[in-house]
């Protein structure tokens, strides 16, 4: 762990200012905000990030509330994963969200980790996490996963980096049409989640989202929608006790009078550098009843774009299974 300055802002504005100091060094030396610290500390210990300053957000009041209204759900960025998981209204109206939170890490980590932090966590790719490896995402010239040990890497949307996005909340929130409120030097802006995450081929290769160094998420807004009640999250872990997704499926549907699908959101996790929405599959299933044949075909379409690497072709049938099962469950 490299020595850093610790600061304790009491307002969002102050935090943004403290994050905004320009640093001459590498992007990974820029000040970083800390909330639960469950991911940031691991990256600091690995020297993957070496911030000159760590800005503690925990003293900022008002960012740890869950508000429920007719308009939907507003989740403060500092709400812990446990608080979200245990919230009565969330449990009642957003079953998929509860399943997604519950699938994360361990009870201890969920007690400290925050919703904002979960969305902003860095990739788990082992090449990225090893201090000795200077991979593409750390300013190097090569994605070692592309031709290396890529069992856990992306099958969709990869290149030039083949990370997968590690968040379990992100696919589910995306399926629920959520957006994040971002505050930066120029004030507040709202970013729909489908515009928040960036592919390595389109955004800054050193980052996974649109946040600038001095920007922080203050809240996550999940609109009320007819699909929320029929939402589900299926995550496949190699090790149930503690693991990231090898693949996951976040599904939310609205059913018609004859139990046909009126609206569907299908988002894949663990298979792409961002939570991967599959509009073609959503479109296919819309208007249909969820027969085994329809489920199978929807799953097939959802993975049609997959281009596996040498060691992760198994993710295609795995993700297909998850889509099929999640759709069946949501539509049950």
């Amino acid at each position, binding site marked *: *762990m*490299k*020595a850093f300055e610790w600061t304790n802002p009491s307002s969002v504005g102050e935090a943004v200012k403290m994050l905004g100091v320009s640093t001459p060094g590498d992007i990974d030396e820029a000040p970083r905000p800390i909330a639960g610290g469950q991911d940031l500390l691991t990256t600091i210990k690995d020297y993957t990030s070496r911030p000159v300053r760590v800005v503690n957000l925990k003293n900022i009041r008002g960012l740890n509330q869950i508000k429920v209204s007719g308009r939907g759900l507003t989740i403060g960025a500092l709400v812990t994963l446990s608080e979200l998981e245990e919230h009565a209204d969330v449990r009642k109206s957003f079953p998929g969200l509860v399943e997604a939170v519950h699938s994360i890490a361990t009870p201890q980590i969920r007690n400290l980790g925050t919703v904002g932090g979960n969305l902003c966590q860095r990739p*788990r790719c*082992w*090449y990225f*996490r*090893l201090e*000795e*490896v200077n991979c593409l995402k750390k300013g190097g010239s090569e994605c*070692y996963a592309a*031709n*290396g*040990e890529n*069992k856990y890497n992306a099958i969709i949307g990869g290149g030039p980096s083949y990370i997968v996005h590690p968040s379990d909340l992100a696919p589910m929130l995306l399926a629920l049409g959520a957006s994040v409120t971002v505050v930066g030097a120029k004030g507040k802006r709202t970013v729909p989640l489908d515009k928040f995450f960036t592919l390595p081929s389109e955004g800054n290769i050193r980052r996974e989202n649109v946040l600038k160094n001095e920007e922080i998420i203050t809240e996550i807004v999940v609109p009320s929608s007819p699909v929320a009640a029929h939402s589900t999250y299926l995550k*496949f872990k*190699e*090790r*149930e*006790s*503690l*693991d990231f997704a*090898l693949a996951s499926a976040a599904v939310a549907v609205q059913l018609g009078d004859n139990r046909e699908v009126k609206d569907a959101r299908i988002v894949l996790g663990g298979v792409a550098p961002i939570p991967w929405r599959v509009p073609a599959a959503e479109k296919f299933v819309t208007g249909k009843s969820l027969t085994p044949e329809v489920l199978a075909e929807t799953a097939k379409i959802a993975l049609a774009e997959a281009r596996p690497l040498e*060691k*992760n*072709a*198994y993710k295609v*049938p*795995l993700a297909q*299974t*998850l889509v099929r*099962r999640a759709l069946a469950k949501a539509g049950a």
Partner: protein
Amino acid sequence: MQQQQPQAQPSPSPKPKKKVRVPKVVNGVEQMVEIEVDADAGPGWGPNDKHKLLNQRYTRVDGPLKATGVAKYTYDQRLPGMLYARVLRSPHAHARVTKLDTDDASKIPGVKAIIPAPLTEVRFAGAPVAAVAATTPEIAGDALRAIKVTYEVLPHVVHAHHAIRPDAPKVLADENNLAEKAKNGDAQKAEAAFATADAIVEGEYFTARIHHVCLETHGMVVDYRGGDTATIYASTQGTFTIHEDAAKELGLPINAVTTTVEHMGGGFGSKFGLGLEGLLACRLSKQTQSPVKLMFTRYDEFVMAGNRSGSWQKLKAGVKNDGTIVALQARQYRLGGVGQGSQAGQPFIYRMGDTYREVYALHTNEDSSIAMRAPGFPQASFAVETLVDELAYKIKMDPVEFRKKNLRDEVYHRQLERGAREIGWSRRNPVAGGNTGPLKRGMGCAVGTWGGGGNNQCKVDVTISRDGSVLVAVGTQDLGTGTRTYTRAIVAEELGLGIKDVKERIGNSKLGAANPSGGSTTAPSLSPSVKDAAIKARMLMAERVAPLLGNPKPEEVLFADATVSANSRTLSWQQAVAALPAAGITSHGEWRADLQARGIHGVCFAEVEVDVETGHVKPIKMVHIQDGGLPLNRLTMESQINGGMIQSLGMALWEGRVMDAQLGMMLNPGMGDYKVPGSLEMPEMVPLIDDEDKREAVIGIAEGCIIPALGALANAVFNATGVRVRETPITPDKILMGLMNSTVLSRQ
């Protein structure tokens, strides 16, 4: 207890003998033979079902200390003025260190010493290059990053299938990557025997290199401040394996160095001797004349603290339709990195007719494998148990019956029958993958053996004081296996006391000698010496109290229920000890061969449920039956059996070291990516002690318990899915790929 009863008059010569069964292995086939040993060394343990403490269930005496965090491990040592050491590791798998520039590092405030590692040519990524001692571990870490190392990078190879190529970079200076180590059997006879077979199975089997994952990492605290003596706090499996080399490093006489091992957090074969960590700590301590603590980080632990040898085995076996295996050819590669690796010779414990094997070391630029719980045995067992299973399915014979047919020792037969009952073998679908629906249940089984005999190294003292306290002292170490507890229990039982009435002192090289804990030798080496000391203490005390009891012979004095009695007179313990001299009495115990034995048998059955649409394997139930002579403590023996099953389960389904060919590094050196199973992975576990083993002798069982589960689980996965995965760990990707294309093995 038998030994408490009056002894028969000593018979005249010839010396009484007793018969002991020991295993003898001929060409991979184990047979039990009876040998005669002297029976006159003193009273024995008595029948296994007549004990008051031993062979019962009693909790560990150090359990509360560990559960409450009071127990002090090496990791917990904090001495005044202590420095913290860290090790700089090579990022290159093969390189020569041409320059070590420590100027900037040594200028960091708090850095007290920087020393180079002993070797300048590194042959694996993670190999030590230098070590730093500083006032805090953080400063030591900063100093590591400030050391500028110039490397001459040399070509490396880390994957076995690359290393075997003739043009591969050479790993070692003095041995080819592929080095023949042994040949056994007659190749031509084996080849000819295949002609008599009705069916043949040929396959290649791999086991990944795995790690010990000791919860306390390797390390020591060397307390030397420039005086005449030094103390070493060590996390070690051998109290007496350290001070000699440490003294050499410190420039002190051997007896000036004391090693202490109060509690230690797991070794599994990986913690013997001073080790590189101890050597560096000694040198830093000597240079700074301050206590130095060098504990590996978790990363260090993975990359430079050793691992279990991987294996690659090419097997071909022929079988007759009646179930007789007639021939085996084996080509076995031990994957030990820069070390020699380990792998038991095939056909392991099966009888396979005409057999021929060639054993090779196949080197890669990886940290040397070292001993790990039953070195080389789970690897050989996995391959041969998979092969045996394949042969059984091929001729459509029940795998349990097939094993019995090819195992001569009847102990396995009865254990297989019991295991089959316990797991419910009759519920199993004999058609692999034959169950309907995506969640498919399957069962498998396997067998295992180990030696577990002791040796003559332990010197034990038992002291009974006039205040009634009893102390048993020996320098041995408790790895978490319950050594403290049974040491007390043996003495308590002999003296007719409760376990709380005896205290033990262990883990100090100034106490009586003891063997290092390797090869399941601790209990069979230590417990006879403890028993001997306890019997002698009883006799000494009996002589002292005899006048109060009407002068019986010492062996006629009964010690039971905290009383001492003879001739219908009874003394309480406190009354009895009042007869002792002021200094109390001390007896000295030596090892007795007749109180231990060797040769154990174990059988494991596993039931799994495989989701064939995700490849997820859920272990449902595991049953392991283990013999082991006299169980010193049924509770800890069951714990050992459970622990063996759990470690084997980890090896079967999750654990494996992943190496990158290009970078030459380990990619998963942490608890996140190196996936040790957690509580949610645990099946119902049924540890069974085979009480039909009537041997009145202590035998080490720890290693036997880890051997068969791996094969049992692999065979259960096959039975469930019809996919034969011949490579551990059996992860979802392999199962899904196996289902997608039949290259793994055609479905039955």
